[in-house]
């Protein structure tokens, strides 16, 4: 099994948040740094945190989300459809590598390398957004009275 890591170290010195690609046989798996549940939470409460805007800050150029169909990733966004089987249960997208491809690493880097960079840039926003959502949810919970 081969592993390729597209790392984008955070300047804050914290552990870098990054998506990674795992190649196994004819499959390439894009694994998010976050769980499917966390992405669904952001879709519900902070959809803007799932988008990457262009320089003028108005047009969405990349979007992350979940899908009920088959997951996919391209230059416009990433749709996660499943979870990894390890204990992290991270959101994943499974892609097929054509049989005629000899160098899987180069193929994957060429096809989705740019998308992974965009995905990492979007995921950098997740921690702050999830913390803010959790804070709001706690406030709501504190104001629920059962009579």
């Amino acid at each position: 099994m081969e592993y390729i890591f597209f790392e984008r170290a955070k300047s804050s010195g914290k552990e870098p948040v990054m998506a990674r690609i795992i190649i196994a046989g004819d499959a390439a798996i894009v694994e998010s740094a976050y769980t499917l549940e966390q992405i669904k939470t952001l879709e519900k409460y902070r959809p803007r945190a799932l988008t990457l805007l262009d320089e003028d800050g108005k047009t969405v150029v990349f979007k992350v989300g979940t899908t009920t169909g088959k997951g996919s990733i391209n230059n416009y966004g990433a749709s996660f459809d499943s979870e990894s089987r390890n204990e992290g249960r991270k959101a994943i997208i499974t892609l097929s590598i054509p049989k005629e491809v000899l160098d899987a690493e180069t193929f994957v880097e060429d096809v989705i390398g740019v998308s992974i960079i965009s995905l990492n840039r979007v995921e950098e926003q997740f921690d702050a957004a999830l913390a803010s959502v959790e804070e709001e949810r706690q406030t709501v919970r504190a104001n629920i009275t059962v009579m």
Partner: protein
Amino acid sequence: MIKVTIGNNVKRESVIIDENETLRSVLEDNGIDYTMGTMNLDGCSLKAGELNQTFKELGYDGTPGHDKCYLLNVVKADNA
């Protein structure tokens, strides 16, 4: 994900959406009235039932060459 330029005679905008969404849900999410005029997908007129199909079912599956489209509602005035 696919990029859809959506709109009508007076406004158009580009949105990025999941290809498994239906045409109808994308139109409703973006406030486009599809009850009047003709709906066009990449210049081709849509039939009523096709609004309930997903973009993927209509061939826009996010692969190169199938990752963007125009979904427009065109209202023609009388004698125009």
